[in-house]
């Protein structure tokens, strides 16, 4: 096993990997940009080194700096996490050149599967069905227009280097294509340093179901069940769960075996995720392989009882998989909410800033993977993911109940977060019945956020509204006091006025 691991990432995933290092007795080395000096991953690291200014292109995306820190600190391997450099095949190459291990697939396998177009060609050869579309990056808008009208709208524009919904746009008609082409390309360039796009047919009401794959360097490959990630906002996963409420043992086996086949064809090692769309008739279409650890890996950990980062490290260190396919068993149900610094009441605008107070959620069945703490200032330079709240329960209903309970306990003061949206989704009958598909949330969002359609508990006549009014008034009283000093005249006068008024009040009922 490795002795010292550099974690080329930040936020909750850097913390997650540091936790695995602690569990395995590996020295965990963090890197940080200028705004991340006091970040949680720096606080919890064994060693931490600065890596440049806030913009990720000058810090977390700089392979040269990562390799330099790894060498100076005496690391023997690099874990890229997800995002940033995780799917850039230059990183495993640079690691190999520097004599460092890389926790992920080889550069070649990453290229064979990491590019969506290459992966789909490979799937085509292996006989795994794919969504209709064009498998090459499209150089110019004109060609995109032609391809789109050939396939027929609606279509999806997708980033060749992409992931996480970035650089992705749904286009319903030819009119929308030029501006979507520009936005998706610029987002992809900013996020991945690669602005190239391709086009895919958009299926009606498909589910997003993905298979977790693990392969070692000794020819062993297994799948760890599926995750359903159909609750998405603008192609960004919002809630993930395992198992899928739509799954059958037969479909799981077929999809799992297809994923293993793709991995074998590509000579793939380490953790990977094969993403599929599944239609109402349980036909599945291969989308892409994410050649890295996924954000949503904890739901698989919860139902399999396996530590996926530990497995990654063991495989990267050359060890054999210690479990066979028949050892993989699923227990209960797990679900994850991605807590973002964004305001669902105001067009989901990002909300960076200082978290003046953060209360975590705990108790039975609750796991929190966080990147923040009370007093931390969330920088505006990176992804708005604050934490992942994961619940496990014996069945899907128990899991949802526990997740709702934990969301009620979690408090973020100082910045906005999307927690209120989760409460609405988890209370929605379509969601609780498992009737979800990739566009479900986008279609449902307006009515979920519509104040008039909300349960009476949140109406302005409710007791909650009364309590909220009281809180606002006490908050204001506290602020007035602090502005005026604790013992100043005006406050005392008000207080006396208040007493007098109270005493002379005539009940009006």
């Amino acid at each position, binding site marked *: 096993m490795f002795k010292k691991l550099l974690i080329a990432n930040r936020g909750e995933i850097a913390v997650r990997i540091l936790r695995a290092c602690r569990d395995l007795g590996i020295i965990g080395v963090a890197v940080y940009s200028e705004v991340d000096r006091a970040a949680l991953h720096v606080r919890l690291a064994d060693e931490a080194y600065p890596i440049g200014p806030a913009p990720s292109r000058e810090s977390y995306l700089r392979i040269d700096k990562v390799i330099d820190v790894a060498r100076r600190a005496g690391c023997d391997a690099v874990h890229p996490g997800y995002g940033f450099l995780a799917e850039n095949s230059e990183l495993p190459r640079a690691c190999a050149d520097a004599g460092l291990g890389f926790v992920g697939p080889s550069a070649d396998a990453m290229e064979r599967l990491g590019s969506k177009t290459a992966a789909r060609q490979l799937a085509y050869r292996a006989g795994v069905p794919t969504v209709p579309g064009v498998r090459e990056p499209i150089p110019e808008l004109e060609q995109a227009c032609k391809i789109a009208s050939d396939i027929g709208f609606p279509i999806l524009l997708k980033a060749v280097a992409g992931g996480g919904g970035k650089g992705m746009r749904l286009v319903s008609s030819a009119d929308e294509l030029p501006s979507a082409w520009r936005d998706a390309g610029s987002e992809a360039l900013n996020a991945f340093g690669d602005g190239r796009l391709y086009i895919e047919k958009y299926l009606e009401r498909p589910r997003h179901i993905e298979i977790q794959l693990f392969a070692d360097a000794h020819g062993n490959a297994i799948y760890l069940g599926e995750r359903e990630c159909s609750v998405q906002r603008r192609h960004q996963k919002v809630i993930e769960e395992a198992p899928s409420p739509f799954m059958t043992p037969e479909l799981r086996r077929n999809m799992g075996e297809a994923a293993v086949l793709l991995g074998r064809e590509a000579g793939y090692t380490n953790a990977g995720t094969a993403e599929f769309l599944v239609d109402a008739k349980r036909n599945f279409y291969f989308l892409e392989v994410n050649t890295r650890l996924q954000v949503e890996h904890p739901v698989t950990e919860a139902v399999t009882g396996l530590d996926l980062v530990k497995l990654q490290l063991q495989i990267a260190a050359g060890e054999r998989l210690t479990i066979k396919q028949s050892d993989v068993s699923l227990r209960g149900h797990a679900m994850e909410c991605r807590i973002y610094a964004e305001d669902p009441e105001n067009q989901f605008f990002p909300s960076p800033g200082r978290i003046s107070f953060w*209360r975590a959620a705990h108790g039975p069945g609750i796991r929190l993977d966080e990147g923040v703490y009370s007093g931390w200032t969330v920088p505006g330079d990176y992804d708005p993911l604050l934490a992942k709240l994961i619940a496990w329960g014996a069945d899907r209903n128990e899991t949802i109940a526990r997740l709702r309970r934990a969301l009620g306990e979690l408090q973020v003061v100082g910045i906005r977060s999307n927690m209120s949206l989760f409460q609405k989704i988890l209370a929605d009958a379509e969601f609780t019945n498992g009737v979800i598909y990739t566009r479900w949330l986008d279609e449902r969002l307006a009515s979920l956020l519509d104040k008039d359609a909300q349960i009476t508990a949140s109406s302005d006549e409710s007791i909650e509204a009364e309590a*909220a009014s009281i809180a606002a008034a006490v*908050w204001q009283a506290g602020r007035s006091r602090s502005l005026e000093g604790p013992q100043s005249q005006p406050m005392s006068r*008000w207080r006396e006025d208040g007493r007098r008024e109270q005493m002379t009040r005539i009940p009006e009922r």
Partner: protein
Amino acid sequence: MKSEVRIGGRVRKLDIERTGPKQFAVVCGTGDKIDGNVDVDVFEVAPNAYSIIINGRAFEAIVMAAAEGVVVRCNGHDFHATLADPRAWRGGRGAVFGAEGKQKVMAPMPGKVVRVLVNAGDKVAGNQGLVVVEAMKMQNEIRAPNAGTIERIFVKEGQTVATGELLVTIE
């Protein structure tokens, strides 16, 4: 201390008295669900976080300053509340909740202006995109609250903006 709070269409008059270092008693105005005869016990358990007990019912509320007034998250529900100046009420002039004037479109978060989608003099519809601000790796389209004519644009592409910075005015 007296206070006046509006949530939705409802204005409540409240009277707050400190009963301990972090504890308050609140008397609600008549006509409310809980009238002046009901004990309301408020405890500030953390900065801007309150435990409220109204006749045995327990609530947790956190209060955050918002563009106009505050947002109160109470038992999982978000409420937008506006606060009248207590001095105004004390003087018997009644509450004054800001009237709408010219539309000022401000940056809802810090970020970088990546695209300006309109020109001064353009007629815009409600919800039409005005400016795209990149923050936290997302491109965020700032839209017109209501229809009108662009009066002035205060930012240009490539510029960074702070929260609340004026982007566009609409007549």
